[in-house]
């Protein structure tokens, strides 16, 4: 619904948009309006329809019905070329840059500037420099994109959008892989874009960012647009409730715990270039958070414990017994499991059916004389699917068809079946919608209450503070500090340790 306080006409209006795929109604009379010079947050759980709506806007998907009005005039948006001509640019989470080409070449890809038929490197370079100045970030136009940091690549994408004359820039989860300083710079860039009259649609699961950068927020759920409000009229709780569709009592359902004796004891863990002399212990029934800036070595520590990478030095003890872990196989046999950071690349074989992913580490249990006992496998999976509420039509669905949240639950089911005593979660709720996040928190809490030892790696400070009993902070490969009582901790305390 339009902002009543604004006398201007909206730059973009999407009205009554329907889109269905075989078996799924992805959009049901979805609507969205956007004003020039504002930041509109687009929020919703996974599967709510945000990506579909954006793809329709970008001409990447044809809509079934509905109208798109740009400056009050209807547009067809039948192809990405239409969208580009209309001034719509989308910066996807994975970026559309060619890593082996330079920043300048990427910006002008397909629209190379020529002088008498020859590529004019000088003209492109000059224009690229101008764009970077406008954005306020210093980047060498000749640098290859693969040599740039994620944050810098994002700036290249923005420059590309600007050079195409974009009036609407959509950013899909722009801050997911940025450090907090880089996020600040991104916000500065967005504010400049606003001042220049460009409208930004900001998609993110990080609600604190929404409150900081967005003017209005549109919430979608089950393919419908639920509401659009000015951000200043919203609180975190109301936002979550709109996204989930029901009132939520507690965002972090962590039960108070009295952890027992230390079970997993790690001493002097080292790996050249990543981890130096890390020692800590995880107690029975405890959720130990391991946090720090991107690149501080947290994931590396987890991989060393799990045997995924070879350690140069250090010992690992479980219940007093020294473990010789040289491969994930060893770790799993000793009751340690890892839910990796990138569930699609490291946690699942997307092409295999859900049931087969579930049983992969435990086929010994589901087989006899080398033959798989399918019935037993299906029954075991059904139990976990029920307990974890994994939404899947049948056990033969390929894992890639599941939503992010369900995929994460599938990975969890896989490890729960192995009866691990020590569970390492690496970014357990990354890219997962609010409703499923809650379910996963509940599961973590229950696991701890049942006596498991949990090491949780996370970059989301509210999650770290809300879900853990104790916090360890890493900085450049070393442990920079420990906070014994997570409940009493503050974000500033953690950040202070994180920056060294």
């Amino acid at each position: 619904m339009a902002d009543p306080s604004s006398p201007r006409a909206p730059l973009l209006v999407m009205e009554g948009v329907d889109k269905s795929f075989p078996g799924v109604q992805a959009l049901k009379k979805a609507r969205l309006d956007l004003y020039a010079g504002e930041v509109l947050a687009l929020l919703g759980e996974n599967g709510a329809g945000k990506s579909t709506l954006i793809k329709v806007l970008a001409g990447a998907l044809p809509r079934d019905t509905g109208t798109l009005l740009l400056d009050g005039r209807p547009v067809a948006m039948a192809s990405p070329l239409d969208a580009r001509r209309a001034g719509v640019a989308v910066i996807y989470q994975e970026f559309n840059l060619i890593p082996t080409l330079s920043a300048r070449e990427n910006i002008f890809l397909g629209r190379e500037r020529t002088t008498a038929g020859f590529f004019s490197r000088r003209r492109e370079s000059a224009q690229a420099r101008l764009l970077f100045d406008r954005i306020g970030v210093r980047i060498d136009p000749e640098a290859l994109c693969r040599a740039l940091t994620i944050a810098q690549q994002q700036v290249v994408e923005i420059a590309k959008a600007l050079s195409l004359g974009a009036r609407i820039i959509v950013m899909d989860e722009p801050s997911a892989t940025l450090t907090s300083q880089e996020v600040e710079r991104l916000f500065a860039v967005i504010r400049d874009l606003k001042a220049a009259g460009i409208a930004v649609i900001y998609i993110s699961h990080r609600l604190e960012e929404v409150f900081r950068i967005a003017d209005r927020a549109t919430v979608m759920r089950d393919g419908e647009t639920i509401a659009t409000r000015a951000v200043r009229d919203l609180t975190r709780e109301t936002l979550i409730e709109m996204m989930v569709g029901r009132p939520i009592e507690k965002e972090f359902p962590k039960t108070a715990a009295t952890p027992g004796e230390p079970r997993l004891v790690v001493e002097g863990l080292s790996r050249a270039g990543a981890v130096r002399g890390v020692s800590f212990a995880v107690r029975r029934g405890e959720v130990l958070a391991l946090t720090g800036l991107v690149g501080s070595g947290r994931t590396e520590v987890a991989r060393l414990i799990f045997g995924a990478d070879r350690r140069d030095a250090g010992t690992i003890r479980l219940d007093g017994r020294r473990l010789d872990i040289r491969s994930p196989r060893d770790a799993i046999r000793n009751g340690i499991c890892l839910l990796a950071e990138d569930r699609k690349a490291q946690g699942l074989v997307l092409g295999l059916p859900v049931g087969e992913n579930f049983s992969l580490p435990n086929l010994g249990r589901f087989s006899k004389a080398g033959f798989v006992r399918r019935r037993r496998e299906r029954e075991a999976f059904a139990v976990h699917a029920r307990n974890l509420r994994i939404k899947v039509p049948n056990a033969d669905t390929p894992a890639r068809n599941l939503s992010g949240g369900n995929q994460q639950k599938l990975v969890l089911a896989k490890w729960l079946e192995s009866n691990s005593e020590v569970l390492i979660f690496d970014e357990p709720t990354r890219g997962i919608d609010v409703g499923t996040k809650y379910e996963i928190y509940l599961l973590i809490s229950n696991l701890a209450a049942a006596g498991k030892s949990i090491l949780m790696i996370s970059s989301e400070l509210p999650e770290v503070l809300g879900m853990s009993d104790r916090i360890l902070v890493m900085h450049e490969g070393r442990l920079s500090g420990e906070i014994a009582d997570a409940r009493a901790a503050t974000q500033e305390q953690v950040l202070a340790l994180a920056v060294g």
Partner: protein
Amino acid sequence: MPVEGPLKSGGAVSRFATHYGMLGVLALLGLFFSWVTIQEQDRTGADAAKYLARRLAADAPKPSRVLIVAKAGEEDARFADTLEAILKKEGFTVAGKVQGDPREAKKALQEIADAGGRLDVIATTREGADWQVLATAGRAFPALAGVKVRIPATYTWPTFLKIENLKNVANQIVVIAVVAIGMTMVIITGGIDLSVGSLIALSAVVAAWLIRRAGGEGASGAALVFACLGAIAACGLVGAFSGLVITVFRIPPFIATLGMMQVASGLAFLLAQGQSIYQIPDSFTWLGRGADLLGLPNAVILMVLLYAAAWVLMSRTVLGRYIYAVGGNREATRLSGIRVRTVLLFVYVASGLAAGLGGVVTASQLKSGAPTYGQMYELYVIAAVVVGGTSLAGGEGKVLGTLIGAFIIAVIWNGMNLTHVESYTQKVVLGLVILAAVLLDTLKTRSWPWRFLTRPPV
């Protein structure tokens, strides 16, 4: 939404259709070649005899005198003997039975004419009817004037669908199909094995060489068996070596097996000293040429058994699961605690063994072992796997699909031969078929044409 009870599996029929869609292509090809090869077919052997006897019984009065004329050879012997037996039973008088060439037929006619006997019918095959001496028998031997030449009626049937031809199709493809079993597993793991063609040669040479050492044409049955096992094992070792190079030294499968392809070929030429080893007993051809069970070639039966075993392995065993998992996402599989290196080693050894078996069958078919066998076969094998629906990217594919792919190639090959397509044109056609098969497969998974058929309203 909560799930009740054990989860059901997806619709079995729709799964079958997507997985084995190539079966439809095979059926269409079969129909096409059946249609274009419809011809008048001659009956042969005992079958011909029965039909001719029936015709004579209807046509000629009972106490007729008949001279049976046939060429030399097994099939014609059956014709002559069966016909004689039936005619005698029916009350005809068999004046003589000739099995040989036109001269012998002339001699027989001469004898009958000299003996003053009457002759009513000369019963022969189509080929015999073409002999001059029979066609002009009435005029050449006045005593036999009025004699009629009778042959069995023809029937209309596609040459493609004749039993001999179908058996031929199956037999031609056996070597490629067997080798393709191992290749399917390798490709599912995301790799490739270019050495199989050379391994076929190496295996044939090793088997022949061992047989020659064990007595050549006088080698015992046991020696033959051990020679085959030795050849297959040698190829398995080469496969293991490829696998080690790939897993331990991390050399890409394409390069590693390309190198082994040259090594194996060189070894084959060295062992055979560049020549064909032919000192092999006839009994060795039992596998490659024999047909014991219901007239089906033994090699075809072997192929069917191997495919059954492979299907069980890939779809019902733990190892089969691991192969798909490694191909689908190697890192995730490793992080699930599976020994990826062992799985990869297995598939390359399997490919080597399959190629070894293919070489043994080839040697059995050709009763010799030469280092030139199997040249370019790796391409046909890969084609069978791809046409059968296995993706070269790895992670998916069906062993039975490869069998269908092999048959598709065999049917097209055979069909082109039956319709007298020139051999160079055949190559072009086969290449286009492979491209078409892959295109069909990509269209199935990506729905790109359909997108352009829907335009959004303004």
